């Protein structure tokens, strides 16, 4: 009788039967191993959580200060019911990890979200050899090929300098968790004071308190003198472009950092002045490289261009199957966000901003990356 697979796709998580542990469950469970703190992977309500130690400040911020959370270092082994688990750097955001699962000589890796380029914030991705590799495919089409990040950061630097010379504010949108820390660590800070929306400000404070080397941000409040915005940089989550909040920065230029900005259509639809093609996910060449370096005999493709990428792998001699999960698909979550904005209207957005109830702010404005 063939043994059942080490990890299974149960429709509510990636599940290890032998250990009775779930990876990134989307419903409350007993034991949840979390790849990273984005809200589509780290969901509320489980009894016990296990994650990398760098994820702790964010998980406590988002899931509640009192959650039962065990943290580990990268490479540190822990055994549940004879199954050996360890977390390995995924390079996606602070604390992001691939979960390596070993049992009776068979190794599976659930990689969560990842990228191969070193962003100087997250610990860089490390390839983990395995028999079965579970990969995302958010940008799993050959049209997605990122430029070296330094080129993008220079673009941002120039854009800010240009706006400054024209007396305009630079409002830069991107996901609060991940993208914003990456930007702060890599662009040239042209001012001492960098302004931020509440969602980003709160997260930044938490991470600084936890010892991460990030610059201090200044929260934009109703009282902030509007004249101060002239020429300065304001960091904001991606949903603000349809809010009234943004009007206070007039005159401003609106920039957006996202892998989706690679396409003209997406850029024009967002109606941003400047799209910066910056993603925390692997592009097509790196996706293929990661699969290759895992040396896996079998690959499961989750969120993104699942059917396309698995067909491509199969045609190239790597057995692959597509799996439907509730993770990411940034495309969809972005759409969801847009729809939410429409239904929520602008007042509620103002409320978010004012209330600064940390959990709700970061939770609802920064949907899944």
């Amino acid at each position, binding site marked *: 009788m063939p043994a059942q697979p080490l990890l299974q796709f149960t429709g509510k998580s990636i599940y290890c039967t032998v250990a009775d542990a779930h990876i990134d469950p989307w419903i409350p469970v007993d034991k949840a191993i979390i790849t990273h703190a984005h809200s589509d992977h780290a969901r509320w309500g489980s009894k016990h959580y296990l994650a990398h130690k760098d994820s702790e400040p964010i998980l406590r911020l988002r899931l509640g200060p009192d959650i039962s959370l065990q943290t580990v270092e990268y490479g540190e082994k822990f055994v549940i019911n004879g199954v050996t688990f360890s977390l390995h750097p995924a390079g996606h955001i602070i604390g992001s990890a691939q979960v390596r699962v070993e049992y009776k000589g068979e190794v599976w890796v659930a990689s969560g979200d990842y990228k191969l380029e070193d962003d100087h914030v997250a610990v860089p991705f490390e390839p983990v050899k395995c028999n079965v590799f579970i990969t995302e495919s958010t940008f799993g*089409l*050959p049209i997605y090929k990122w430029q070296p990040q330094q080129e993008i950061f220079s673009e941002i630097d120039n854009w800010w300098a240009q706006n400054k010379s024209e007396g305009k504010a630079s409002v830069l949108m991107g996901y609060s968790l991940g993208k914003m820390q990456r930007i702060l660590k890599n662009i040239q800070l042209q001012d001492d004071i960098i302004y931020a929306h509440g969602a980003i400000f709160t997260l930044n404070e938490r991470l600084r308190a936890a010892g991460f080397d990030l610059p201090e941000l200044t929260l934009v409040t109703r009282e902030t003198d509007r004249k101060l915005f002239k020429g300065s940089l304001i960091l904001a989550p991606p949903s603000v472009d349809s809010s009234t909040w943004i009007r206070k920065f007039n005159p401003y230029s609106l920039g957006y950092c996202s892998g989706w900005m690679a*396409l*003209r*259509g*997406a850029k024009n639809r967002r109606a941003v002045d*400047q799209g910066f093609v910056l993603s925390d996910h692997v592009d097509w060449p790196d996706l293929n490289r990661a699969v290759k370096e895992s040396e896996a005999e079998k690959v499961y493709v989750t969120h993104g261009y699942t059917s396309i990428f698995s067909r491509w792998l199969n045609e190239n001699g790597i057995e692959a199957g597509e799996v439907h999960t509730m993770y990411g698909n940034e495309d969809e979550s972005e759409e969801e966000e847009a729809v939410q904005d429409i239904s929520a209207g602008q007042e509620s957005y103002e409320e978010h901003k004012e209330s600064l109830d940390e959990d709700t702010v970061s939770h609802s404005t920064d949907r899944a990356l």
Partner: protein
Amino acid sequence: MKQFAELFMNLDRTNKTNAKVELMKQYFLSASDEDKLWALTLFTGRRPSFKVNRTQVKEWAAQEADIPMWLFQESYHSVGDLGETISLILPRSGTFDSDKTLTDWFYYLGLLPGMTDEEKRDHILQAWMQLSQHETFVFNKLLMGSFRIGVSQTLVVRALAEATETDPNVIAHRVMGQWDPKDTTFEQLILDKGENDNASRPYPFFLAYPIEGDVSDLGDPADWFAEWKWDGIRSQIIYRNNELFIWTRGEELSTEKFPELHFLADVLPNGTVLDGEIVSYMDDKPMPFNVLQTRIGRKNLSKKVLQEAPVAFLAYDILETNGVDLRGLTQEQRRAELELVHQNVPEQYTFNLSPLIDFQKWEVLHELHGLSRQNIAEGFMIKRKSATYQVGRKKGDWWKWKINPLSIDAVLIYAQKGSGRRAELFTDYTFAVWGEDGKLVPFAKAYSGLTDVEIGQVDYFIKRNVVEKFGPVRTVKPELVFEIGFEGINESSRHKSGIAVRFPRILRWRKDKKAEEADTLDALKGILEVYK
């Protein structure tokens, strides 16, 4: 090329009219005269054809990127634009150091038509290797066309007028008609103040605005002319230097397409320009547009076609007599002049005046408006008697008062992703009505009519309610109902429904209706019976 590619990307990025004009103006102020002329060629829709086969170009790009064709197609569906897909998919291993100008590239492309397939391939690959991603994208647009960047001719004219400090009306006139960047110069075309204008050059058309509010708001009826708004092809007929030219509004020289009107060369005095509508015409009355449609686009006008869909010209304005520009005269004066010219032409059913409608009160016009469809008209044109003939769409003197479109409630059943600004969003829809067997029968495709917010909501629904995939097309759970408007209806053997509608578009989203409450094919056939 770098400069032009930058202009293109910047134009693409903004949807503010003033910003677009400013960008083009700066380009016209800084680019070389040669490049300006080629840019103008593109902006006014005169891109030369280089006789390349799109399928071949796709294959070359896929080979170069080392991916199978199906993966290329999937990528194309996601991007929605072929030129852009290729620019993204090519390996970034080139030199990107080309300093060729826009003009150089046009001459480079000009070599293609004489080449073998193999040579074409090498020629194009060589170009791709030298260009950055954005430049490759623009190059592909030059190569394969569809150069849409949301810049209307009016905006180009405005930018050019500002850059050269010339009256926009003069510029509008100069860029019209037949010219080829290979045998003119920017100087000659735009700046030359001499009267060496070529004989075929049409005048810019004066276009009407849709009427706002009630027609009676226009004031004293005695100040206005009213004519039927004909459902044909707006055209200018020019007879100069013993040569006849027929221009359609799309700025196409279509003289050969209308042999019925060639007799005008024998009867019009030299230096005459008429404005009017070419319509299908049988038994002394106009026919619906779909009769005319059967001969548009045909290369060979067979005897049969000419017999089944004859045309006539309904003149309603005159812009030039004896070589003198009449556009500064009033509508009333021009009408008198037009009637004079018409009187002097021996009677021919193919050349008629568009009659003025007799009305002393707006109420009379209101009543007649209801008879538009019976008169094979789309409503009325209302023209101020004191109006000069202006350039482009101007408010105030010419109004169009159109009849409401026919409409029917239909269910959304298929969707496909759009392109350009709408790439990655499902925006191309197919609609169906209920057939006798209780099945939905598709009858129209429509792209426009929803707001961006609605498009977002419909897209959200579609992505969660896909039933089947056929290539780029998704079968969607039949749930959403829309009111679909159309201008005309006709029998069609090509469509499953047996019906073809003209200019279908979404009038509104019937959120109040369930799919079962949508209209039936019978209802559609009922409309056909009344209006065919």
